[in-house]
C-alpha cells in the first residue's frame, strides 16, 4: 500500500517542481540567474572541449602520422624520403611500411597526429607563457610584449583621431540637415572603398613609419563613424528637442545641452562597436609598409611554423578586445547614471576615497529607490 502511494505522488511532486523552474526556451524572456551563468561558461567550454576531443582522441581526425623512426632508410622505394619528426599522410606511412616489409627490414614507427596548423590546447596554453619569454629569433624582430604594445598604440591613435574628427562631424550631420546633405553623400561614397586600398598611397605619402598604419585605421573607422554617429544623433527623441526649444534654448544650446547629452549613451555604445572595427583594420594596417606589431609577430611565427604561438597571438587579440569592451561597458554604467541607476563616476570615485564617511554624495546615491505611485 505504502509503495503505491509513493508511486502515485512522486511524479506529481516532480512535475510541480518542474513547473516552478523557468523554461530554458522562452521568447524574449531572461534566463534564470543560474542558467545565465552556466550558459555563459558553456559558450567557451563547448568549443574548448571540441578542440580537446580533436586533439587528444586519435580516432576522431588525426589524418597524419608523426614519424618517430623511419626504419631502414637504405631500402629503396617510392616513399623512402620519410624521416624522423616528419608528419606524413597515413597512406605514405603505410606505403613505406609495405616497402620495408617486402624487404623484410624493421618497420617504421610513428603515431597518428594532427596537421601542424592544429596544435593541441596544452601547446597553445604553454605558448602563452613561452611566447612572452622567448627572445626574438632574428635581430630587428620584437619581443611579443613590444609587438602587442605597438599594436595597442596604433589602434589607440588611429581610433582617437578618427573619433576626434568623426564625433563632431557626425553630431553636426545628425543635427543640421545642411551638414547632413553637404557631408553624408560623399562619406557614404568613400566608405565603400575598402580601407586597405589606401595602403600603398598612405605609404607613398607618409613613408614607412607608423603614420600610414594610423591612417589606415583612421580611414577604416572614420567614414563609418560619421554615418553611424549621424544616425544615432538623428534618433534622439524629437520631443526632447522641442521641449528644449520651448524652454528658450537657442541653436547652440540645443546642440550642446540637449542633443549631445541625449545621444551620449548611444554614442558611447557606437564607439565600443567602432573600436572593434579598428581591430579588424589593424592587421591590414600593420602588414603594409614595414610589418609591425602583433601582425608582424603572427606573420613571423607562421613562417617558422610555430602555430601554437600564432594561436596564442590570435587569442591574445581577442582577449584584449573583450577586456577593453567589458571595461568600457562597466565604466559606461557610471558615466550614464540616469540609465543604469548607478551613481555618477564622480560620486563613485568620491565614495571610494571616503569609504567610511556618510557624505551627502553617498547618501543621495544609495537612497534613490525608484518611486511608483
Amino acid at each position, binding site marked *: 500500500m505504502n509503495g503505491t502511494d509513493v508511486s502515485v505522488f512522486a511524479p506529481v511532486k516532480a512535475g510541480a517542481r518542474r513547473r516552478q523552474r523557468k523554461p530554458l526556451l522562452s521568447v524574449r524572456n531572461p534566463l534564470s540567474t543560474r542558467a545565465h551563468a552556466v550558459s555563459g561558461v558553456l559558450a567557451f567550454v563547448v568549443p574548448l572541449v571540441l578542440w580537446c576531443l580533436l586533439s587528444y582522441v586519435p580516432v576522431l581526425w588525426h589524418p597524419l602520422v608523426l614519424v618517430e623512426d623511419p626504419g631502414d632508410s637504405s631500402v629503396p622505394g617510392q616513399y623512402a624520403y620519410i624521416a624522423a619528426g616528419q608528419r606524413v599522410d597515413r597512406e605514405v606511412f603505410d606505403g613505406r611500411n609495405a616497402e620495408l616489409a617486402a624487404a623484410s627490414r624493421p618497420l617504421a614507427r610513428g603515431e597518428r597526429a594532427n596537421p601542424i596548423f592544429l596544435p593541441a590546447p596544452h601547446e597553445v596554453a604553454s605558448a602563452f607563457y613561452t611566447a612572452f619569454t622567448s627572445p626574438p629569433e632574428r635581430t630587428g624582430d620584437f619581443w611579443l610584449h613590444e609587438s602587442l604594445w605597438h599594436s595597442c598604440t596604433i589602434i589607440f591613435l588611429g581610433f582617437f583621431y578618427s573619433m576626434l574628427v568623426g564625433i563632431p562631424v557626425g553630431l553636426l550631420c545628425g543635427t543640421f540637415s545642411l551638414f547632413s546633405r553637404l557631408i553624408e553623400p560623399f562619406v557614404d561614397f568613400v566608405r565603400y572603398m575598402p580601407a586597405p586600398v589606401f595602403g600603398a598611397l598612405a605609404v607613398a605619402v607618409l613613408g614607412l613609419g607608423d603614420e600610414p598604419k594610423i591612417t589606415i585605421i583612421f580611414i577604416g573607422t572614420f567614414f563609418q563613424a560619421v554615418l553611424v554617429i549621424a544616425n544615432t544623433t538623428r534618433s534622439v527623441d524629437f*520631443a526632447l528637442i*522641442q*521641449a*528644449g526649444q520651448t*524652454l528658450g534654448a537657442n541653436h547652440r544650446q540645443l546642440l550642446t545641452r540637449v542633443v549631445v547629452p541625449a545621444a551620449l549613451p548611444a554614442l558611447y555604445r557606437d564607439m565600443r562597436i567602432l573600436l572593434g572595427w579598428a581591430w579588424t583594420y589593424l592587421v591590414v594596417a600593420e602588414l603594409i609598409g614595414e610589418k609591425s606589431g602583433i601582425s608582424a609577430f603572427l606573420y613571423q611565427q607562421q613562417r617558422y611554423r610555430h602555430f601554437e604561438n600564432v594561436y596564442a597571438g590570435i587569442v591574445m587579440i581577442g582577449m584584449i578586445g573583450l577586456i577593453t569592451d567589458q571595461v568600457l561597458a562597466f565604466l559606461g554604467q557610471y558615466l*550614464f*547614471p540616469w540609465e543604469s541607476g548607478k551613481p555618477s563616476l564622480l560620486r563613485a570615485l568620491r565614495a571610494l576615497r571616503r569609504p567610511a564617511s556618510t557624505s551627502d554624495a553617498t547618501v543621495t546615491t544609495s537612497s534613490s*529607490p525608484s*518611486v511608483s505611485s
Partner: protein
Amino acid sequence: MIELPSYREQAPDVAAHHAEIRERPVVMTVGSVGRVFDSPQGPITALANIEFEVHRREFISVIGPSGCGKSTLIRIVAGLESCTEGAVLIDGHPVVGPGPDRGMVFQSYTLFPWLTVLRNVMFGPSMKGVPRARAEQQALEWLRVVGLSKFAEHYPNQLSGGMKQRVAIARALANEPRILLMDEPFGALDAQTRCNMQAHLLQICASVDVTVMFITHDLDEAIYLSDRIVVLGAHPGRVLEIIEVPVPRPRSAEQFLSGPFLATKARLEELIHGHAAAEETLAAE
C-alpha cells in the same frame, strides 16, 4: 430626464468672475489662424479662421473630436509649427518660433533623462543665463509648488508618470512664461492619477499668476479646470462655440454632478458628438 438649467445661465458670482476676466489685459490673441497641409490628394485645411483671445490668469481649454486640429493649434501657438493664415500674438507681438514666453507641457514625457529633477527645472533659467545659485533657489521653490521638493536629486526615470508631468509643469513655470501651453498633459496617466493631477493643477493656478491654454478631449476635465472652453469642430478645424463655464470657483470634485456642470457637459456633448454624427451622415450621403 432631469431638467437641466441652460449652460448660459450664470449665478451672479460666476457672471461677475467672467466679467472681471474680460476686463483683464489680453495676453494672447489667436487672429484668424488657418493651416493648410499639402497632400498628394490636394491641399487639406486643418484649421480655418480660428479666432479667440486669452486674458491674463485665464484658464482656457480647447476641446474637440480627434482630427479637429487642436494639437496643431497649440503647436502653432508654441511656434513649433507655422500657420498658413493669420497670426498668433503674445502681448501684441506675433509668434515666429518657439520661445520661453510660451512654456509647454507635452503629452509625452519630455523631461531630460540625463538631468536630475532639480536640473530639469533649472534648464530654462540657465538658458537665459540666470546665475546658478539663483536658478537653483527658484527651481526649489517651483518644486515646492508642485509638491516634489523631496525628489530634487532624483532622475526622471525614478518618478511615476504623474510626478514627471508635475516636474514638467514646474520646468515650464520656472521660465515665468506669459502663457502655459498644455497639450493633453494628463492623457497618458491612469484615471486616479489624472484626477489628482487635475486637482493639483487647479491649486497651482489658484496660487500662481499664470495663464493657461489647455488641450484635452476629456469633457469633464475641460469643465472642471477651465474658465472658458473653445469647442472645435473637425474638417476643417473651426470654432463651433466658446463657452463660459458656469461652474463657480473654487472647483471641487463634488461639482461634477451639479446642475451647471451637467448642463455644460450636455452642451459639449451636443456640439462635439452632434457634429460628428451630422458629418457622418453627410459623408454617407
